């Protein structure tokens, strides 16, 4: 499917921001065989004093910005055309959890693709008894990794309520889980904790979600903002598979990838430190329209 994506993020600083350095991760990724970015522009207003492009440890593209003049607002804009074909359906050839453990142990490497980065606690995803117990209760003895992940993906959608008012980007994972509500970021962090708790390597994907549903289908949750979902390692043979617990589905042609890493901390769209006396307000709008 071909999409035109536009994103606008605005920050306002009523008391003038003095200086700031930011890392921005908002551009659709170019993923050979999975997703192709045909054209993309990224604009910043006012013009920053420095703007540098690079890739991070996990291979994600990012832009570093430096503002060193006082400014009262920053506007970031993305316009992109992306081709995201539907993934080919695959047979489940993932191992059982105990066989998966052996496969992980057999992986000698700490390269970006290594499952070892995704097994333990990370900055925003602690491994908690509650999420591990929940995940264990959904695991049928002898089930494959993929079956177990699917079961958890479905269960979380059933048990957690999507509620954009209930949490903020700072809400801890466990709090969202215990209250059984949140947005895509919370669903994703909870599922990652569940999977890591039972030994399945799991990571975070940030991206865009198709805004306008195909005819006859309802609009997906989280489509009016940037989206997030889960990727899990299903053994050497199947590799990484992506699930969207907010919508109880596998990530597919409706999901456009920006960045993949351990959790939100690694791939937050805007990260940064601002020297400013007061608070700020922000606005953020997304449109992902199929090209017809």
């Amino acid at each position, binding site marked *: 499917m071909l999409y035109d994506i536009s994103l606008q993020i605005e920050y306002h600083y009523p008391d003038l921001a003095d200086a700031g*350095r930011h890392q921005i991760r908002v551009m659709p990724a170019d993923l050979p065989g999975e997703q192709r970015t045909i054209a993309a522009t990224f604009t910043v207003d006012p013009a920053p004093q420095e703007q540098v492009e690079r890739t991070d440890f996990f291979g994600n593209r990012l832009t570093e910005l*430096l503002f060193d003049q006082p400014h009262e607002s920053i506007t970031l804009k993305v316009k992109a055309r992306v081709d995201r074909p539907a993934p080919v359906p695959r047979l489940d050839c993932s191992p059982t959890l105990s066989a998966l453990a052996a496969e992980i142990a057999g992986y*000698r*490497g*700490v*390269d970006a693709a290594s499952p*070892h980065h995704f097994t*333990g606690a990370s900055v925003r995803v602690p491994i908690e008894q509650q999420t591990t117990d929940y995940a264990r209760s959904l695991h049928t003895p002898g089930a494959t990794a993929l079956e177990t992940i699917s079961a958890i993906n479905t269960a979380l959608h059933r048990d957690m309520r999507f509620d954009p008012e209930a949490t903020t980007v700072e809400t801890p994972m466990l709090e969202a889980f215990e209250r059984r509500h949140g947005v895509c970021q919370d669903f994703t962090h909870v599922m990652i904790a569940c999977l890591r708790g039972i030994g399945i390597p799991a990571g975070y994907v940030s991206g865009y979600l198709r805004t306008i549903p195909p005819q006859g289908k309802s609009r997906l949750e989280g489509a009016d903002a940037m989206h997030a979902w889960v990727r899990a390692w299903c053994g050497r043979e199947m590799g990484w598979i992506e699930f969207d617990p907010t919508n109880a589905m596998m990530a597919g042609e409706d999901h456009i990838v920006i960045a993949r890493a351990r959790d939100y*901390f690694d791939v937050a769209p805007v*990260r940064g430190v601002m020297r400013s006396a007061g608070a700020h307000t922000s606005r953020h709008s997304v449109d992902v329209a199929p090209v017809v």
Partner: protein
Amino acid sequence: MKLQGDHASELDVSGLLAGYDRTHDVPDELIAADGSIRPVWHDLIRALASMTPQEIGSRIARGDQYLRDAGVFYRHYGPQDTAERDWPLSHIPLLIDEAEWQEISAGLIQRADLLEQVVADLYGPARLVEEGFLPAPLIANNREWLRPLVGTVPRSGHFLHFIAFDIGRGPGGNWWVLGDRAQAPSGAGFALENRIATSRIFSDIYGHSNVERLAGFFREYRDALLDLRGDNSSRVGILTPGPLNDTYYEHAYIARYLGFMLLEGEDLTVRNGQLMVRTVGGLSPINVLWRRLDAQWADPLELNEASRLGTPGLLGAVRSGSVTMINALGSGVLETRALLAFIPRICEALTGEPLRLPNIATWWCGQAAEREHVKANADRMTIGDAYATRLPFELDDISAVGGKFTAKVKETVEAWIDDGAAHLVGQEAVTLSTAPALVDGVLKPRPMSLRVFLARTASGWRIMPGGFARIGHHGDRPELAMQRGGSVADVWIVRKDPVRKESMLPRDGIHLMQNLPGVLPSRAADNLFWLGRYVERAEHLIRLTRAYHVRLAETAYPDTPLLTDLSEYMSSLDIDISRSVPAAISTALASAFGSAAHVRDRFSSDGWLALADLQRSVTKMSGTATAGDDAARAMGVLLRKLSGFSGLVHENMYHFTGWRFLSIGRSLERAIATTFLLARFADPEVPEGAYDLAVELCDSAMSHRRRYAVGTNRETVIDLLALDPLNPRSVAHQFDELREHFGFLPGATPHRPTTDLQRAMLRTYAALASRPAYKLDTGALKDIGAGIAALSARIGHAYFR
């Protein structure tokens, strides 16, 4: 023990060692296995034996006095309180002979080279993981392994430049490495202070004992850091977490000792990949930074977001190769406790040789066979956090020592190991050797471990000939005996031949560095400026309080018009006159102290002690002084102490840019206070006695008597306190001072106004100086006061941003 030809008799020696009750089968540094005194100790023990207890006592007092005078302290973080504590010197040094030291050196240099190879691999090809020498999870789950720096080669080509090892002597008499300190080891500065104090205690013995000097090591290390700058004249910085850190004293001390800039994270910024210092003269590049800050706190943009100690963009500067960090950010991964399990095999694989100095036996429970071994031998092990960077005997929240938990845990040790296997490590519980310590005047054996420092120089690793010995408490369990709260001792490496005298003078060809006036970090300038203002403010508040209580003591009626006016004025300055020592005074002094704490490397210990003494006096007086005469006298005491501090600073401080900011703060505060004081007490409509009060508050009563034949009137008061430039208390005099200082600040010219700040000051000055005394009415004075106050913000804008 045979000590022939001594002036101390055998009897004296055996008397000295009568209480030395060493434990059977634990090696001792002083007494060999056969019961004889080890040769390296002979001189010291003989000398001690010939001293009376009184002499030993007075020698120790001399060392302690030095430490107190130098203001050596460390910050102790207790469960209830955080406080600065006296330095816990164990007065008997640890002696090691030359031959043994050479073996230790060779072992530690081998280990230093090995660790450099390991860390270069972990941030490079990671072959040690690929080839199975290190388990991947141990690296991937390690907080100190910094993904943003994987693939970055350090600017200097090396990750490690200054490291330390904690070592101890085990039961067999051999030395063991207990832990690697590869990130930002502390203690080198304290080792120097221990040396100075201990050599004062035993000055005669130290002078004759062929003890290796420490200065040569520091000189070579300093020169190595200067060389790392490359072709430029930038200064070397020491990055500190700030005054709240437990070893901040040491950071300030070593910065002074080596002549480096002491910097905090907010002093630094990054422009186009280059690390810069914010100075009063603008941004100035810096290439070499000795960090005493753990990596996690170094850059809130990419690491711990909550850090207020770091510099956003620092990692970017490292990636772009513009700065050499001592040690490279990320080298903390080498301190991981579990790594000790793998280092011996890695050594053989990479160098083809075994470790010359073994490390303490360690098993990572993330491996099945090792886990079973730890479970089966838990009673002989200390089991704790695999990722911790502390020493084996520094216990975690939950550790199991000898098969028992140190905290309340519901499970069994075995179940605990199975549950958290990948996060746990077992280490053999070694009994460390004992060394002599004076306990209530008697020599006693105490468990000991040693921290040894290594620096990379042009000719390879250089080892500090000495170090930092930690002396534990007496205890049944050696690992518990070594927990926090012990003391520290100097370490003497004793040679057979006389040693060379060393000094910090630079080697030939390198001239003494001159500090350019512009390289004063903005934050230091800001703190000095406010230190000047707060001290002056405190003085003004004390004078007001004294004037009030003097008058109160003289009258039976506290509601005379003058006292009413004065108390109103004091209330407007937030002085609560119902208390004899108003809180406003202690607040101003506490603020002065807070500012001074950030620039401790910039003024003398005497100045610091004077300020600390002042603060203590205020606290004491707050409880005791009563209104009237008593309070007035107390204020007099404070004023004298305050002028003691000001004298120390203004008489002894070199007239660097920093001194100018301190002086600007003082003059500005004095000008503001005097102008508003005149606006109030030189007004035509004031009660009787107000003119005299103003003259007294400005400490100008004598000048007034000599200068004018008449008593005080409005015009003489304004002339003397506002307009007379020869009166050091007048507003005009403050303007003269400010004009001179402003002329020497970066960007300015001394004899004509070239900066906005200079021009703004001249405008305000003209408003004052162009009026005769009778035209300086209350309205004009208030305008001038506001004009002077506005200069403060201009200074901040121009130099402290």
